[in-house]
């Protein structure tokens, strides 16, 4: 689908932006992190992108970057714009767009507790879902959920007494301890 004309004009005003029309009614913008708030403001003010559908965060650990994706929908031009921007993973600080989009408060709070990205100017950076979690931000790629599970939980006993009796009598299928799901008890 062709972009509506005024979208083209609009996007021409912006330098440093890569525009890709991926699919029908989908448009991908790659924006440098400094210019993103301005781009969003322009999109909201000039093309009716009123609806912030979501803010996603992707952890590109190999490049040591977080990618923030702002999904915006406009009924005026019937297009979903995904504005991508990359920030450095290390301080992990970015600007909040709460003054433009109220729903950003939830998404930024969510990204903060799942990835540890801090948004300056967001109304509330307190924990929401993981209030009783004291580990690292779990959605980061370096967090190994399976290891954490093995560390903190026991597995159900897959060899109850009655099954062991059967095994001793020559029936059943004996599962060797090292083939079972590992757990604290097996390590001891």
């Amino acid at each position, binding site marked *: 689908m062709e972009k509506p004309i005024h979208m083209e004009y609009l996007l021409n005003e912006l330098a440093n932006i890569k525009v890709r029309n991926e699919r029908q009614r989908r448009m991908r913008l790659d924006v440098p992190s400094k210019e993103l708030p301005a781009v969003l403001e322009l999109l909201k003010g000039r093309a009716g992108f009123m609806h912030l559908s979501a803010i996603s965060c992707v952890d590109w650990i190999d490049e040591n970057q977080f990618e923030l994706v702002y999904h915006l929908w406009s009924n005026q031009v019937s297009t979903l714009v995904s504005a991508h921007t990359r920030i450095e993973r290390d301080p992990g600080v970015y600007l909040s767009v709460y003054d433009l989009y*109220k729903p950003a408060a939830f998404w930024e709070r969510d990204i903060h507790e799942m990835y540890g990205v801090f948004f300056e100017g967001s*109304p*509330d950076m*307190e924990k929401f879902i993981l*209030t*009783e*979690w*004291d*580990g690292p931000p*779990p959605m980061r790629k370096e*967090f190994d*959920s*399976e290891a*954490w*599970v093995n560390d*903190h*939980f*026991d*597995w*159900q*006993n*897959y060899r*109850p*007494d009655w099954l062991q009796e059967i095994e001793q009598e020559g029936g059943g299928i004996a599962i060797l301890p090292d083939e079972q*799901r590992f757990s604290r*008890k*097996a390590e*001891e």
Partner: protein
Amino acid sequence: MKEFPVPVQTAEDPSVKKQSGNIFSNVFDELVRFAQSRSLFMLHYCTGCGAIELPPAMTSRFDMERLGIQPMVTPRQADILLITGYVSVKTLKRVILTYEQMNAPKYVIGICSCTVNGGMYWQSYATAKKLNDYMPVDLYIAGCMPRPEAVISGLRQLMEKIKIGEANSWQDYFKRYDYYLGNQQRLFGETWQTPTDIIGESKHYSLHTPETEGEHTRLLELHQRPLEPLEMRLGLSEKTEDR
């Protein structure tokens, strides 16, 4: 590796009781057990996705009330704690608080595979894998999720167990409190505590055994502080009054 016995009471307990008492108290006990089995109030607490199959089981189509099972609202009123599916760590704390508030005899039913072994969330950092580490479970109903028929048939089994006097796993919580508390502390941290004085109650109901107290309860005493009302954080709404 210390193996803990699976908390299932054998059928011998009631028969021992039967011989010791006189005939009237036996009849009375039996009547009480029968009434207990025919009147089960289950706690209205949806801990997970299995809760979606409870409304069909309760309402017009399967109608649990004809078996004397009805939902109750607060833990004080309830007999059955239905753990309907995965329990996240945050929920598990509430579940334990809830369980300790209930009046015995109380029964715990783990519905859905997730309560048995973590189910499809076995890799998840947020859900508990094995419910009977944290509280004694009377009955598991496996399935993802079990159909209402399965739930009802499980409840019928529980009723049978109550009728013959086998469903006293609640005593196990008093008798082996140290074990359960140890598992809870391992997951929630050393400072974990509940407002209920389990040791005191176990003494009061003469369910105190050597295994009630141990290293974990000593740890608890070390950290126990008087109960404070929970802090409420209401910052957001006040900050953004004009929203």
